[in-house]
């Protein structure tokens, strides 16, 4: 008994000592030493601060804060505005010229000139890192600094209206040529050490994918304006549930990317928090492999696609599965983008119409129920894909016209197999490179040719060697890409969207909203959640 009491006493004293020591830190809550700074939590990961080595959301968020671009989007707008450049325009149909602002410097004191700009773009192409954005510069033939303040881009295609948008993408950050190597990606620690940043913030302390402290750059002269918050700290989370827990407990000030729809719904009911939403660019859609999908001939396949388009209930997916964090998409170009229409709503309505679906099938002589193998991926597009596609299955089978064989495959295998024509009908998603309608059209509709890069979906739509070639679509795309007149371009975009709705090579389902949860008192979140998809720390204050 004495041993029992003694052992218990030892354990008890040890526990008390531990708690007492721990309690010494009780006042040391996160953010205390950050003063009036803001703490932003995210589950995104940084691949590389160096623009030549990254093409992902996590890296782009960091780059948005610390680098300048030639042009940029001010908060709340998708109108391109000079950032490091004072002006940019087409000089000839194939040359695009930018004039630099005078007196720009990097945080390390080096001058920012046209030479740095040319260097920045050339190194992206030269390094061609597997994780990098070199593929975004396919429209650029060459770039050079014609003098200290002038950068000249030579383009492959004349009057390419999408090129200015490319300057704001992951390929566009301007780096210090004295700090970044021309032939290799600079690792994060070295990039932070070098201080080659001219954006609104510089990076003070940095532990990759753990924590990053951003400090306002007093010399910044660009689109975003002077930062209102001196210090912003980014905390990186492994799991969304921990991000949710910390924002719920007000351990952090902002939670941005990515909370689940259920978490967001729960946080909406939490006192002291505000859920801010903004225009989303993410698109969820179904792809039809025109060669392997059910149907004996081209007409039957089209009828089946139209019947499916008439049968899905987007509102149900939006509300029941995604708790309104995704909204119905009636076009491949999401609502909010210039030139977007609701072509699928006009063609098929906004609610399921089994009678219309049946008529499509009967007119084409398609026997029902149609057996459709539908493939989705449970991890790459979020954990709700499972619910989403089970709901799609239920919707289609509720018409009595379809029998859906629903299968799922994990991402790496999935992305290889759909490219090998293994899936007749399958899920894909898209996040735009820049906020322009063309970025939702050209990648999907351009002529598909094995000799050159074209359609990454492997739908075989507009395959030049097959009956699915669509020269009219090709002509429309070429027209909108090079049309400098806004009204006429939008008219062409409308034609393209109508044609997609008529041909249904893809079935747009949902558009994701941007969501950021902020502690009450944090301002500016609604301002920065705009259709440019740039999360600007300069907008935030508390």
């Amino acid at each position, binding site marked *: 008994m004495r041993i029992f009491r003694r052992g218990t006493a030892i354990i008890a004293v040890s526990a008390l000592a531990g708690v007492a020591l721990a309690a010494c830190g009780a006042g040391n809550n996160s953010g205390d030493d950050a003063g009036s700074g803001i703490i932003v939590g995210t589950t995104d990961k940084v691949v590389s601060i160096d623009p030549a080595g990254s093409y992902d959301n996590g890296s782009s968020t960091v780059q948005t804060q610390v680098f300048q671009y030639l042009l940029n989007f001010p908060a709340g707008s998708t109108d391109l505005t000079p950032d490091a450049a004072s002006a940019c325009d087409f000089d000839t149909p194939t040359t695009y010229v930018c004039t630099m602002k005078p007196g720009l410097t990097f945080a390390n004191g080096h001058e920012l000139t046209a030479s740095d700009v040319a260097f920045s773009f050339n190194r992206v192409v030269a390094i061609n*890192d597997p994780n990098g954005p070199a593929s975004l510069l396919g429209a650029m033939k060459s770039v050079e600094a014609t003098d200290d303040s002038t950068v000249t881009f030579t383009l492959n295609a004349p009057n390419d209206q999408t090129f200015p948008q490319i300057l704001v993408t992951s390929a566009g950050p301007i780096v210090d040529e004295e700090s970044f190597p021309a032939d290799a990606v600079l690792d994060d620690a070295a990039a932070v050490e070098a201080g080659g940043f001219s954006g609104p913030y510089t990076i003070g302390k940095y532990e990759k994918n753990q924590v990053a402290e951003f400090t306002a750059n007093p010399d910044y002269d660009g689109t975003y304006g002077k930062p209102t918050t001196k210090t912003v700290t980014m905390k990186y989370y492994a799991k969304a549930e921990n991000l949710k827990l910390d924002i719920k407990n007000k351990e952090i000030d902002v939670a941005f990317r990515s909370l689940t729809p259920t978490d967001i719904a729960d946080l909406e009911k939490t006192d002291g928090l505000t859920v801010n939403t903004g225009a989303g660019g993410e698109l969820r859609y179904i792809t039809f492999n025109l060669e392997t999908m059910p149907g004996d001939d081209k007409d039957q396949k089209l009828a089946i696609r139209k019947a499916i388009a008439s049968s899905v209930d987007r509102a149900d997916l939006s509300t029941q599965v995604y708790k309104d964090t995704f909204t119905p998409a009636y076009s491949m170009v999401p609502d909010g983008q210039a030139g977007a229409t609701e072509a699928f709503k006009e063609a098929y309505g906004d609610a399921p119409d089994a009678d219309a679906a049946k008529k499509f099938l009967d007119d084409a002589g398609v026997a029902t129920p149609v057996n459709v193998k539908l493939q989705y991926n449970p991890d790459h597009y979020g954990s709700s894909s499972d619910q989403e596609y089970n709901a799609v299955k239920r919707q289609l089978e509720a018409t009595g016209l379809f029998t859906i064989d629903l299968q799922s495959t994990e991402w790496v295998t999935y992305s290889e197999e759909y490219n090998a024509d293994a899936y007749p009908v399958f899920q894909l998603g898209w996040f735009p490179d820049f906020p322009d309608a063309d970025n939702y059209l050209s990648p999907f509709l351009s002529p598909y040719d094995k000799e050159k890069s074209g359609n990454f979906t492997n739908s075989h739509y507009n395959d030049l060697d097959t009956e699915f070639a669509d020269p009219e679509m090709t002509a429309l795309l070429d027209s909108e890409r090079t049309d400098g007149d806004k009204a006429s371009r939008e008219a062409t975009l409308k034609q393209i969207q109508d044609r997609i709705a008529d041909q249904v090579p893809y079935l747009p389902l949902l558009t994701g909203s941007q969501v950021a949860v902020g502690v009450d008192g944090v301002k500016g979140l609604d301002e920065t959640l705009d259709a440019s998809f740039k999360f600007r720390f300069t907008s935030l204050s508390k």
Partner: protein
Amino acid sequence: MTTADVLAPLDPPSTPPPARRRGGVPPLARYLLVRLALLIPMMWVLVTMVFILMRVIGDPIQAALGGRLTAEQIAQRKADAGLDRPILTQYWEYLSGLFRGDFGTTLTDNRKVSDILVVNGAATLELAFWSLLVAFAVGVPLGRIAARYRDRLPDILLRLFSILVYAAPVFFVGLLLKLAFTPFGWPSSGRASIATELTLQDVHPHTNIMIVDAILWGDPALIGDVLKHAMLPAIALGLLTGGVFLRLVRVNLLQTLRMDYVTAARARGVSERRVMNKHAFRNALVPVVTVMGMQVALLLGGAILTETTFEWKGLGYQLSEYLIKRDFLAVQGIVTLIALIVGAMSFLIDVIIAFVDPRVRF
């Protein structure tokens, strides 16, 4: 009269027989050299298995860029990254790099694998340390109590406790602890608060072991903050091992208490406390030391779940991240290091055992 006096004429203690040297090598040295030599083929087999398996399940370029680029573009990027070279060429390059201490650079986020091993390895080491502390603090004294009160209520309750903590999945225990303690202001995740993390980046030398860095910084508030953050993950992972220790100490103590020399000691009137502490307990700990080495492997494996649950970004967490991304260079490096640690721990245990129990040398 001591135990040794009683036993000397009747039962020679574990006095080793006269050493028989083979080829002039002392038995202990031979034993240790054999143990050390066995590490090399073990490491080679493990590295090779990981190399092959990772290439079977896909590559990082497909994982990252599938769904954005065409198959041809992806193939081009794979070629640019050298992933289309003959497998034996890649294998030989990798092994050569390992011999030079070059673990390579990750394919998916451009980090030196050696940096990951240092930075994230320190986090896992710290978690393993705290967990072992909890395991010892819980398992050893409770095991003693259970043995002392064999088949009585304390023993029954403690055995039940050990089964419960051993059987409960570590992430489940972790979640329970979070739910129970975070409403009271206990931190739910991370190795330290953000302010502490940022402050400790200025410590020189920077060990990446939070408690060491906090001590070097010298601020009790920071030390307290680090300890507070370590408590829940240490308990979650430590209880698992503590349950094992509890059972082990109990069983070994009971066996030791049945030995003749213990009976003799009791017969001589030695107090029960002295029998337990001086004669039985120390001998009962010997197998525990052996198992402790094996538990390090368990801790590293269980650490993946604990690290992810508590945002404790150690090797286990990084390993799971790189596995999902199919970054085989990173996975190979981390698995190699874990294998090295487990091998080294096993070797160390063998050394300790050889010194404590000379019989194993022969």
